[in-house]
């Protein structure tokens, strides 16, 4: 394991020094890699560990983005504080959703549909609220300063996004090794059996969805202040929800590094193909490629790419001793 930690430390060192060598566009790709790794990790907490599939996680991104932006514009509250208010709102919404979904132990299908419905309806309702910019969304005023969470250039965003990602990896590691994580995995494997052994499934499902929702909403605040434009269709839409679950599934569901590996593979691919095909007037083609890739991975490597990465790194890092 020491070799493994040394490896992680060297990767981290490289990532910390990387901005010295990259231009703005390349930095932007890395920001997106970290951003999606973080989102995938947040989603992984719920779906990877408890097995409840959320296909509406964009909901919490939207809540985070809209709450902090609204508070900043209406009351001048710093997004650094607003993001925690957003997280609180996300937790409240997640509790409503969780109460409906988990009360009857509604598994699988019903829960998935419930999550989609919550996201879609929030999108529609937000589209009709004038204070939140209705259909046209909100443009953020560009006032770069630390307290406004806005910066010129991509370097500050790079380090913030990197911090987010590292935080999420540590958080998931802590959850996985704690009693909470063990209970969550027990629920995933067999909810009834877990319940019979005295695990309060409802309680731990609620905790999992609350953690996942609040983590996701923090990323929403980041996204709003990175893009400077929030729009109901792009923030609450199915597209983003699908986008953010692809990486953990392709990387490896219910693992600590799966979402990160998935994001490092998929995000550059998506950014580059998107730019490439949009030039040729073939918008949408990159999503077709995405879809095909996702199907192939699920059919032929259902445990994710992480298995293969482990196999390659194993002789060097001696992972087998513990992890």
């Amino acid at each position, binding site marked *: 394991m020491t070799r493994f930690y040394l490896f992680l430390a060297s990767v981290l060192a490289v990532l910390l020094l990387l901005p010295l060598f990259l231009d703005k566009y390349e930095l932007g790709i890395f920001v997106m890699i970290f951003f999606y790794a973080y989102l995938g990790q947040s989603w992984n907490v719920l779906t990877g560990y408890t097995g409840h599939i959320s296909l509406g996680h964009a909901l919490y991104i939207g809540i985070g983005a809209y709450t902090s932006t609204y508070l900043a514009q209406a009351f001048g509250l710093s997004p650094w504080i607003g993001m925690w208010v957003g997280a609180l709102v996300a937790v409240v919404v997640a509790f409503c959703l969780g109460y*409906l979904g988990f009360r009857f132990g509604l598994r699988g299908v019903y829960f998935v*549909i419930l999550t989609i*419905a919550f996201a879609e309806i929030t999108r529609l309702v937000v589209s009709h609220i004038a204070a939140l910019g209705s259909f046209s969304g909100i443009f953020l005023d560009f006032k770069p300063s630390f307290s406004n969470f806005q910066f010129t250039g991509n370097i500050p965003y790079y380090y913030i996004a990197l911090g987010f990602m590292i935080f999420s990896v540590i958080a998931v590691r802590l959850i996985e090794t704690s009693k909470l994580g063990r209970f969550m995995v027990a629920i995933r494997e067999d909810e009834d059996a877990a319940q019979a052994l005295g695990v309060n499934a409802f309680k731990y499902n609620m905790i999992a969805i609350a953690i996942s929702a609040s983590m996701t909403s923090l990323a929403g605040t980041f996204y709003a202040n990175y893009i400077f434009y929030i729009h109901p269709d792009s923030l609450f839409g199915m597209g983003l929800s699908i986008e953010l679950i692809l990486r953990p*599934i392709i990387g490896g569901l219910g693992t600590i590094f799966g979402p990160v590996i998935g994001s490092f593979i998929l995000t550059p691919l998506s950014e580059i193909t998107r730019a490439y095909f949009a030039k040729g007037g073939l918008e*949408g083609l990159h*999503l077709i490629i995405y879809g095909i890739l996702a*199907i192939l991975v699920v059919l032929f490597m259902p445990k994710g790419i992480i298995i293969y990465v482990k196999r390659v790194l194993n002789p060097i890092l001696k992972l087998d001793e513990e992890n």
Partner: protein
Amino acid sequence: MNTDLALQLGVQGVLLGGIYGLIAIGLSLIFGVMGVINFAHGQMMVMGMYISYWIFVLLGVDPYISLIVVAAAIFLLGYLIQSSVVNRILDYPEAMQVLPLVAVGLILENTVLLLWGPDHRSPQTSLSLETIWMGDVMVDVSRLIAFGLAIIITISIFIFLKKSNTGKCIRAAADNRMGAVLVGIKVNRINNISFALGAATTGAAGALLIPLMPLSPHLGHDFTLTAFVVVILGGMGNLIGALVGGLILGTAESLSTLILPATLKQVVSFSILVIIMLFRPQGLLGGKK
């Protein structure tokens, strides 16, 4: 509140509800046989719409006449999807079943986008502006025909499932998979046919919708969600439930425009979904599993 208007909207809602029912029956059939939720259902319908639109623009054949061709095309598409993807994921945990079908939806949606572009299109078919008066209520002829055809298709599916040999096999596989295998039914083939049949009904519904709403590549999500709500309302895997649910939802959405802006009508279907999940999660008519 204006009773005439309410009556008018009610009738329109019931007529649209018949088509909702047709879409939902396909979803329910697929779920009933394989326990898989077809997240590409709405996108398949949109595919059907565009094929029908294509035939109309290129050959001038009315959507009602090309219905059979469209249904056959989507039947083939469904067969292909089932045999290449879905049959391989039936034993996966649910989380892994969701993604491939979502991905199929993504592929279909963007194929439509690639082939026909992002614009909204509303073709003028021969009957699209005709109306008739039934008492005090004005009814679009195209809506009436769509409803009638939807009901005819639904009834023929019921007869097919009840009487034909294949239909009996499908019901057997839905009822007890292992039992069906044991008595010698080729379950994989039955799976293919069920999925294809479910796809064909939603494709047909797409063709029926052509005169009623403008086409757009991104209609799929809304219809997938609507079909989910209808199926949960009626009971998962319950075909009659799907029809009843469709009629209820169509009427409720239509009547809601009396008090809400039309763009918010999905809020109604969502509220219905929440209420059903709170009080009767097995659906109005009871479901499978």
